[in-house]
């Protein structure tokens, strides 16, 4: 078994098991927690609508902070949208998903994906530089932050390397790329990358709680 076979087979398979089991563990563990009893009268009826409202409104910065957070917010959007496009709109990736989902969707030309991938990496580096140079951010950062940053950007970098090759063999780079994706899948449920599947759950919960308390959301 060569490296590519290992990456496409056992490595990806074990990573998928861990991703599925870990993500469901985190979600079920949170969703089955007992709600803290709240004996106060609700000021507004918090419901699904309140959750959806906050999910939407928190996607943008509140007016007083717009200026201060413009740069990191912009970088974060570029990184996230770039990552989304690279993962879900690169045609060979769509073929990968089609392999187990059974359906496909339209993709983008490789040149566009390459550009978006580079943009994602550049913005990711910019965010890391900010994290390191900002004293407050540096103080509240831990291993999880740095490792999550690494496992997110590493697959994009290895994917971009496949395009430019740089003297390495395609199958070696492809194997390294798939292994880097496997590493991301394994880490995703356990660290701060858990926000991938928790972001809307937590944001929606916040919305419902705030709505009940009468906060302006």
């Amino acid at each position, binding site marked *: 078994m060569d490296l590519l*076979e290992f990456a496409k087979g056992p490595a990806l398979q074990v990573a998928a098991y861990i991703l599925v089991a870990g993500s469901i563990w985190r979600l079920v563990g949170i969703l089955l927690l007992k709600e803290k009893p709240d004996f106060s009268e609700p000021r507004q009826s918090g419901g699904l609508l309140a959750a959806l409202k906050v999910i939407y409104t928190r996607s943008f910065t509140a007016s007083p902070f717009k200026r201060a957070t413009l740069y990191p917010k912009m970088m974060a959007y570029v990184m996230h949208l770039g990552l989304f496009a690279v993962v879900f709109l690169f045609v060979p990736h769509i073929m990968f998903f089609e392999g187990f989902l059974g359906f496909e969707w339209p993709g983008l030309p490789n040149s566009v994906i390459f550009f978006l991938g580079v943009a994602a990496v550049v913005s990711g580096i910019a965010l890391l530089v900010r994290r390191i140079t900002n004293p407050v951010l540096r103080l509240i950062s831990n291993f999880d932050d740095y490792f999550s940053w690494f496992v997110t950007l590493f697959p994009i970098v290895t994917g971009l390397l496949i395009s430019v090759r740089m003297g390495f063999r395609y199958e070696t780079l*492809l194997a390294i790329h*798939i292994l880097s994706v496997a590493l991301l899948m394994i880490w995703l449920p356990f660290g701060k990358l858990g926000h991938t599947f928790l972001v809307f759950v937590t944001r929606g919960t916040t919305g419902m709680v705030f709505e009940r308390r009468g906060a302006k959301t």
Partner: protein
Amino acid sequence: MKKRPTVGEILQAKGVSRRGFLKYCATTASILALPPSMIPRIAEAIENARRTSVIWLSFQECTGCTESLTRSASPTVEGLIFDAISLDYHHTLQAAAGEQAEAARHAAMQENDGNYLVLVDGSIPLGNPGFSTIAGISNVDMLKETVAGAAAVVAIGSCAAFGGIPGADPNPTGAVSVMDLVTDKPVINVPGCPPIPMVMTAVLTQFLTFGELPELDALSRPLAFYGQTIHDRCYRRPFYEQGKFAKTFDDEGAKAGWCLYKLGCKGPTTYNACATTKWNNGTSFPIEAGHPCLGCSEPNFWDDGGFYEPLSTGHFDSGEKLAGAAAAGVALGAVAAAAGRRRQAKFMKEG
């Protein structure tokens, strides 16, 4: 020993013109990535080279490699160059049979000790000596006996180079490649199922010309032919970059000649000269004919996923194991939540 004629004398006798001969030398220099200044040297060396004795051993094979060579379009200069070697032993092509054939092999080995080439097609079964025998001699014994006095060994085709189809899972005969058994002689792998005729003859030409082996890659394949992937030199590559892929063999994309990646093309991971040298006198190659590359010049190509499965497809087990992982996640989550509830209740009670 009777003095063997030079290759030049043989070509002259066959009616090959000087122009045709030099054209072949120029093409050979080009595909071997040699500078134009080497063309006269190649011509001179080939003309004056004495016929090199070649012993061709066929083991667990389908004769496709020989077919590829002998059926390559009408007589070519490459074909004549191949005629110009002294093919002293070859099951399919030789007239002799039985003891006479074996006597020819032994004679060639004795007369050219240390100087002859051994070409092997087919893999060698180690599971049982009786799985494949020639004149009552097992393949492994014949290989070891023959290569003992050889200058070099050329493994022709993917079976000889990597075990090929006989070595595919579950490998019932315990098939191995030539380089698994021959460790004390230079081994050149010329894989392919079958290899391109021009590649076979060019490797022999280089040996005849310079008396040395070509530069090889990590899998002992001549870099001149196996240095780049099919994908890198494929004329359909622009469609790959544009994200235009044929989805079936008869859709509009297929008719428009779009990339065959989605139909399982292994071009990106296959190192061979098909896209440049092509087949049948440079007429075409599988991708040009509308079929994805199977990756036949790579080790384990037979077992390396489905032929019509895109390269980017993961090899997952059945969904049952994934469902098991999901169930384990639910169980773990329930246990974690229960523990959380207990802590919560204790906290509420104790304040």
